[in-house]
């Protein structure tokens, strides 16, 4: 029942109704308010925060529900992103000038489910050989998987130029909705919607969908089986749960969310390159899940917002502050970000080990001193 508040925000539980309406209106007005108060660049930051929330919710299925520590999650995001980058840009003309003289320009709406499915397939590909691994062993293998994908993308520019290597793929088609590209300002009912606003609404809809799916899965037979595996895999299998299939399902579902977010990212950004999919990004997404509250949808959303927006706040405040105080920039905001980030994690682990908004289970688990010994 803890999730009701955030759900009413995302208009699923019409209770209490007035709060729901207020939050819906607030979310719908958010890009205009942000634009007016902070400038257009911040709307873009909010868009990226939404992508991170989708990623974090996807990872939450794997880590939070099924208890499988995945350090290579960003690889699925990369698979989705490159899926659309290749099928929605002129790039393939370089590799196959005869077959595709103008590149491939499939509609985003065709590629999106394919990207999700392909990423889901990669999820199974990662899951299958790691079924026997748990905890830190699984973390190491998944970390390796994430790096392999990134290094492949980095090097697949020869002998045929498939990914264009470190330069990345640019001129990716924008997402079209009802024939109108979201990359251009659109006038709807006399109101002018700039591109970042349009993408905001697109991402808002997808985030709502991801939340809906997560919540439905959590409170289902499948969700319970995942939690049983997380709690005690041997007991779960003795109770008739097919742990192999359900772990693969968790990997696949999480990866599908990642793949879909990746396709959205490619369409939004118009450009992808391997450096967007580094290990650091996997760790960022994992931190969002852990910091916010593993297994709790509201917590994961909060973690996503905080970790996506705070670095930007830093970037925008630290530089002018140093300029004003010292007349020059002493500490680079990027390194300051890592410093504060590390500090925040340590403080969190000391004072709120279950996350900012812990799930019911984690709160109870860590709230009592008699933490059950597992295996």
């Amino acid at each position: 029942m803890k999730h009701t508040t955030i759900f009413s925000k995302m208009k699923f539980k019409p209770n209490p109704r007035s709060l729901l309406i207020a939050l819906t209106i607030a979310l719908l007005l958010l890009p205009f308010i942000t634009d007016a108060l902070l400038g257009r660049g911040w709307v873009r930051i909010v868009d990226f925060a939404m992508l991170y929330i989708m990623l974090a919710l996807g990872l939450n299925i794997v880590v939070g529900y099924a208890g499988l520590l995945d350090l290579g999650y960003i690889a699925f995001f990369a698979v989705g992103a490159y899926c659309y980058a290749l099928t929605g840009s002129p790039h393939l003309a370089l590799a196959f000038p005869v077959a595709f003289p103008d590149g491939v320009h499939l509609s985003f709406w065709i590629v999106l489910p394919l990207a999700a499915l392909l990423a889901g397939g990669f999820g199974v590909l990662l899951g299958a050989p790691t079924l026997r691994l748990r905890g830190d062993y699984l973390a190491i293998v998944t970390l390796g998987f994430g790096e392999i994908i990134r290094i492949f993308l980095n090097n697949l520019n020869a002998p045929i130029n498939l990914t264009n290597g470190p330069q990345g793929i640019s001129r990716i088609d924008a997402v079209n909705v009802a024939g109108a590209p979201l990359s251009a300002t659109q006038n709807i009912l006399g109101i002018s919607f700039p591109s970042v606003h349009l993408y905001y609404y697109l991402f808002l809809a997808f985030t709502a969908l991801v939340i809906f799916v997560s919540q439905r899965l959590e409170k289902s037979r499948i969700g319970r089986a995942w939690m049983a595996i997380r709690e005690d895999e041997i007991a779960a299998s003795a109770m008739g749960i097919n742990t192999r299939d359900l772990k693969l399902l968790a990997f696949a579902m999480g990866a599908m969310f990642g793949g879909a977010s990746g396709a959205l990212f490619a369409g939004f950004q118009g450009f992808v390159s391997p450096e967007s999919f580094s290990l650091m990004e996997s760790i960022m997404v994992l931190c969002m899940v852990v910091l916010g509250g593993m297994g709790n949808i509201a917590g994961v959303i909060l973690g996503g917002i905080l970790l996506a927006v705070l670095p930007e706040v830093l970037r925008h405040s630290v530089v002018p502050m140093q300029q004003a105080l010292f007349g020059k920039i002493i500490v680079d905001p990027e390194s300051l970000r890592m410093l504060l980030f590390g500090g925040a994690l340590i403080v969190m682990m000391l004072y709120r080990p279950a996350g900012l908004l812990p799930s019911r289970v984690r709160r109870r688990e860590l709230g009592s001193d008699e933490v059950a010994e597992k295996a």
Partner: protein
Amino acid sequence: MTHTPSLLQLSSVSKQFGGLSALSDVSLHIRRGEIYGLIGPNGAGKTTLFNVITGLYQPSAGEFQFNGTHYQTAKPHVLAQAGIARTFQNIRLFANLTALENVMIGRHVRTRAGVFGALLRNRATRDEEHAIAERARKLLHYVGISKPAQTLAKHLSYGEQRRLEIARALATDPQLLALDEPAAGMNATETASLKKLLKTIRDGGITVLLIEHDVKLIMGLCDRVAVLDYGKKIAEDVPEGVRKDPAVIAAYLGGGDD
């Protein structure tokens, strides 16, 4: 002997761990509707035998037959599906889930809803979820857990945790309920009510296989008893017969001569 058909039949089952023979050539059969006791000194191979028939271990040799199907190697979830449910010697509940959720998870194997059912939450899925919760509540009541169903499993008392494990196992609709030392660490009152519960379960038509150290419980409860020692079955009889068996006395009191 076999006037009632066997539910579980072990044929020459052996299990080796490296050079150690934990079970050698054990054959036994459990009849439908009885309470079958398995006793033996520490390290005799009782839990190993349990782990073999519940799929956690693969036997090194031999096979067993459950409810008319032969199994040589089978996954735990396949055997649970076939109708064998178990509890664990060192309680293995889903400690951070509620008592109710623990039992609901036991229903997994008898229910169907998949991802699409979860997403659509259609009528069939809602009805199924309702039935799962309803059945789980009934089972909590049946095994005598009086604490609220929303209590975390790990916050139940020791005796209640043992009962919760039984409720979770019963939720899988087993034909054979295998209990690994259910009375371990229980006081006399708890043991007495456990005994009553096991009789009720048996009278409800479920065959019970029981590993136990409490000889009084075994003698008062079981229809037949097998004795393991160093991985070998040294006796199988009604409790009175086992009690008088010289090999059993030697195994328990030591001093065997051969």
